[in-house]
């Protein structure tokens, strides 16, 4: 039965994940949908996971694989912090994630974005896609929804943004991807990491800006029946 097949499919996070550096730190953003085939298994998942006090990772791809990788890296970083005697750097966290992803590339299916702030380098974003490449970037996007954002970022990204500009950019980008990607949805979660510490923000789906052809939420059947039908496509 088709439905059964979908319920037994591996739990994957269709996803849109973003990491952006700004003048003084980083902003990480993600949607909140976890899908099993065609069913939304969790509409309020938290894809931005803590690795240390100052380093967070955005997870995409297989839910199980990304959870296990981040659990192991958190454990290694904890030991490393004890041995080092001071907070771990973002680079070390990213290196550990890359080590696990690359050495187990045959069995893992997960794309991650590591972002954080440390006193040596400031705010840094590292992208670790499928296969286990490590690439340091001023901004990184990942997940199935990222396909719709490459052009957007080419146009909208600029160096030296302020914290608010960067956060608004991330929220706008995730909400654009949610509008176009079926596997992304729910709410937009952002995490801002800088010298002062970590701030989590949450933007519910119905409070986001409406894009092209998106309708206001409608509660009454009368509204739905009376709304104009969409224009037919011109071929």
């Amino acid at each position: 039965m088709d439905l059964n097949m979908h319920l037994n499919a591996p739990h994957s996070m269709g996803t849109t994940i973003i990491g952006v550096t700004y003048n003084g730190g980083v902003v990480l953003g993600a949607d909140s949908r976890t899908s099993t085939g065609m069913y939304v298994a969790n509409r309020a998942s938290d894809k931005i996971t803590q690795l240390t006090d100052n380093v967070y990772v955005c997870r995409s791809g297989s839910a199980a694989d990304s959870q296990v990788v981040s659990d192991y890296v958190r454990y290694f970083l904890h030991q490393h912090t004890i041995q080092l005697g001071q907070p771990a750097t973002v680079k070390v966290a990213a290196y550990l994630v890359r080590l696990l992803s690359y050495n187990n590339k045959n069995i893992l299916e997960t794309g991650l974005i590591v972002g954080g702030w440390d006193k040596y380098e400031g705010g840094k974003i590292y992208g670790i896609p499928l296969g286990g490449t490590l690439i340091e970037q001023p901004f990184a996007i990942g997940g199935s929804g990222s396909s719709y954002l490459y052009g957007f970022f080419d146009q909208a990204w600029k160096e030296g943004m302020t914290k608010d500009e960067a956060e608004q950019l991330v929220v706008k980008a995730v909400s654009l991807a949610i509008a176009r990607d079926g596997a992304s949805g729910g709410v937009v979660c952002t995490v801002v990491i800088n010298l002062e510490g970590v701030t989590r923000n949450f933007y519910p789906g119905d409070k986001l800006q409406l894009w092209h052809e998106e309708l206001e939420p409608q509660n009454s059947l009368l509204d739905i029946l009376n709304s104009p039908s969409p224009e037919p496509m011109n071929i």
Partner: protein
Amino acid sequence: MSNSVIEVPPKGGFSFDLCKRNEMLAKKGLNPPSFRKTGTTIVGLIFQDGVILGADTRATEGPIVCDKNCEKIHYMAPNIYCCGAGTAADTEAVTDMVSSQLQLHRYHTGRESRVVTALTLLKKHLFNYQGYVSAALVLGGVDVTGPHLHTIYPHGSTDTLPFATMGSGSLAAMAVFESKYKEGLTRNEGIELVTEAICSGIFNDLGSGSNVDVCVITKAGKEYLRNHLQPNPRTYTSSKGYSFPKKTGVGKSCLLLQFTDKRFQPVHDLTIGVELGARMISIDDKPVGLQIWDTAGQESFRPITRSYYRGALLVGL
């Protein structure tokens, strides 16, 4: 992935070679024997004092219902219970194993088990077997840090949620939860909502059925309400009970005595094996001797009496 020519010595860990062989065989048309699955609707929700878990009670083996009243809410610790969907053997084995591990851990630490401990033990095990241990679980409990509810998928991923449903009936149950769940439910409201969600699975999903089990866990303790609701009673039993056709005490020996001796004896001993009676009657003015064999009706004499039917001219039933 390139096919390597060099033989690489196997590293440690589980070998999935036979799993790949099974997949190849299935593609060629050879299907493995069907096993007992719990098609299932399992749910959990967090209410104001703790956690409520619910499950249906049908176990299926392909299209057949093999158990109409199985238990899907498994004990993990005095304060932690786990509902299981998927292959029945897998859910039972994995919850049993982790329950023992938790007991040992309690001995080592001297403390009450925490729900996240059970969660980590389960997810580690399931991830190691890469989804081949087909157990989808709803884990709930109350520990020192408060009430917790988690879902665990066969591949090892977990979610932490205020309300959750799993199994083939999860869509039906989730529809009920999404429309009626709110934070801060009371105990009775919670039980009613859980029952409604399970019933929705029972009546709308073919893999779920029979009765509703509920388990309420709070800081004070747990309450396992087995068969809390039985919305599918057996309606086709006759009120008078069933009787089966009688073969003993119907009057065979009595009949023979009357025919041969022309007398009636109200009380007879039980016929052992076979008894012979004889009588002369005349048919068309010719004398005919009748040999009448009175066979015992009891089942235990069946092998003996059967051999007397051969060559008989007449059989009286």
